[in-house]
């Protein structure tokens, strides 16, 4: 019989524990190593899925990996990916935000209408829209932290409220890009990097990921967001001001939605109150496929970015392969269920 000594050394070596140690080492077979790896790095599984997706779709249709297609895919991802940054923050606190899209559209319509009909300069209109988005986020945050209502119910309510306000305010009318100041559609301007075409909106989205990613992984605030999502009572007892952290998350999410609204104007070339109807579900899909746990405290924005790209890669890849669009829905649905199952599995990890 061979005794492997790889892995962690036995805990303060009681001789009687030898058989147990051996058993423990034996149990850590390939599947368990995968479980541990995914547990330590939740973004690994979406990364693997994205790579496989790209390889398979390129084999089906080589046009998939041409610079033009990739540029289009990235541009199409930008809006949902930006919204999903805010969604990630809220889901990390074990909450959920159904009002993402509605809040962003309200902010966008305020920007567009003040920039065009009310003749405000671009910067002022943009700022006003951002303020509206922040107020929307703060309203959600106040209802969750002060009235202690479940985030699902709060944002289900504000989803309708924000949508209704938008429709009443605009009368359902769209505003074309030509009527707006240049600054508002700046996010649609493109730069050519070799054969790739990148919009300012995409760059802004990347910046958003860098800033929020940094805040989550490198600052005390980020630590506290994870701790509050993990176990709010433990976080409170450890000395974290949990309501303050929770409220700040909703406010930051509001800022993110305001920026996403700006990116949306550039992407759509117009501001329409009926744009991105399924943004809430699409952003949740990106977060979940990206490996962030719906139970809070686990995950991050890197996974979310990968998740958003996976959904868009499926959409483009399947249409390039000549497959009916309904299959995209089917594939994304299966991915979501698979992602949540993997999350449940890796949560059971024990050393």
């Amino acid at each position, binding site marked *: 019989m061979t005794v492997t000594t790889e892995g962690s050394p036995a805990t303060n070596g009681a001789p009687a524990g030898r058989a147990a140690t051996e058993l423990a080492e034996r149990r850590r077979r390939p599947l368990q190593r995968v479980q541990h790896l995914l547990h330590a790095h939740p973004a690994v599984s979406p990364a693997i899925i994205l790579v496989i997706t790209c390889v398979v779709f390129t084999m089906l249709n080589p046009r998939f990996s041409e610079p033009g297609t990739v540029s289009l895919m990235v541009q199409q991802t930008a809006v949902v990916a930006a919204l999903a940054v805010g969604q990630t923050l809220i889901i990390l606190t074990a909450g959920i935000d159904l009002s993402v899209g509605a809040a962003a559209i309200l902010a966008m319509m305020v920007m567009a209408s003040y920039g065009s009909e009310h003749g405000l300069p671009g910067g002022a209109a943009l700022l006003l829209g951002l303020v509206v988005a922040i107020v929307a986020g703060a309203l959600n945050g106040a209802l969750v932290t002060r009235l202690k209502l479940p985030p699902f119910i709060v944002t289900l309510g504000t989803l309708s409220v924000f949508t209704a306000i938008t429709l009443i305010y605009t009368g359902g009318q769209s505003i074309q890009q030509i009527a707006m100041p240049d600054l508002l559609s700046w996010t649609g301007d493109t730069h050519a990097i070799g054969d790739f075409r990148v919009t300012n909106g995409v760059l802004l989205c990347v910046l958003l990921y860098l800033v929020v990613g940094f805040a989550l992984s*490198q*600052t005390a605030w980020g630590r506290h967001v994870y701790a509050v999502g*993990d176990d709010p*009572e*433990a*976080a409170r007892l450890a*000395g974290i001001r949990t309501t303050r952290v929770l409220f700040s998350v909703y406010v930051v999410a509001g800022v993110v939605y305001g920026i996403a609204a700006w990116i949306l104007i550039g992407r759509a070339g117009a501001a329409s109150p009926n744009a991105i109807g399924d943004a809430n579900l699409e952003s949740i899909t990106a977060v979940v496929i990206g490996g962030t746990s719906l139970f809070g*405290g686990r995950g991050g924005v890197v996974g979310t970015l990968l998740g958003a790209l996976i959904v868009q890669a499926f959409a483009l890849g399947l249409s390039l392969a000549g497959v009916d669009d309904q299959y995209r829905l089917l594939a994304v649905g299966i991915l979501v269920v698979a992602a949540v199952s993997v999350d449940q599995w890796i949560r059971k990890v024990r050393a």
Partner: protein
Amino acid sequence: MSESSEHDDTAVLSARGLVKTFGRVIGLDGVDLDLQRGEVLAVIGDNGAGKSTLIKTLTGALVPDAGEIRMDGHPVSFKRPQDAREAGIETVYQTLAVAPALDIASNLYLAREERRPGPLGSVLRMLDKKGMRERAQKSVSDLGISTVQNMAVAVESLSGGQRQAVAVARAAAFGGKVVVLDEPTAALGVKESAQVLRLVESLRERGLGVILISHNMPHVWQVADRIHVQRLGRCAGVISPESHSMTDGVAIMTGALSLDA
């Protein structure tokens, strides 16, 4: 009813006449308590005797309705756990109050993270992860905890005893004056319990005042210097392992024996 006595100003922590009610339920009914430096004071009592309420008022998790708490002779009032912490009282809750998904170092420094020196810390507010990891390692090894090695491991992958050790190490690393431990051995096996009791003794050797809440009489009689017996929201008496046997302690706890001196 006799009024509460004067504060013992040599005590690191002293409470007089603590009262706490929850609606019509009386949690504490005028409790006094004194804790000296370098002393392990055990608090025992039946379920509902007010043990948890007592330590929660001492650690800022509950605000007492009446009564006074002093530290080193100075009156203090705690509105939340953070206040007690700042005054030098660290608590190891029965639930441990750790964030399972965060690693050991992050848990040790939870809510008192240290930033990097220079603009990275002051402007970008960047955490000094490496430094915190090293200092966490040091505080763990200072306590002689050998079962926890890698500070980058998530707490949820640790055993019950290891988690307890992490929580105790956190309290010891920051506990300026007093460490309160709520049922630290309740969920542990024999070997792990022995390790935690050794930790309690090492806290005493460092000159800290230790309050130990426990249901486990052998553990209490093994490490405690004095034993505060809580019964029906009041202090039924303070005994010591030398003056009374475990049987006496249980009898006082249940009211079968009364300590009217």
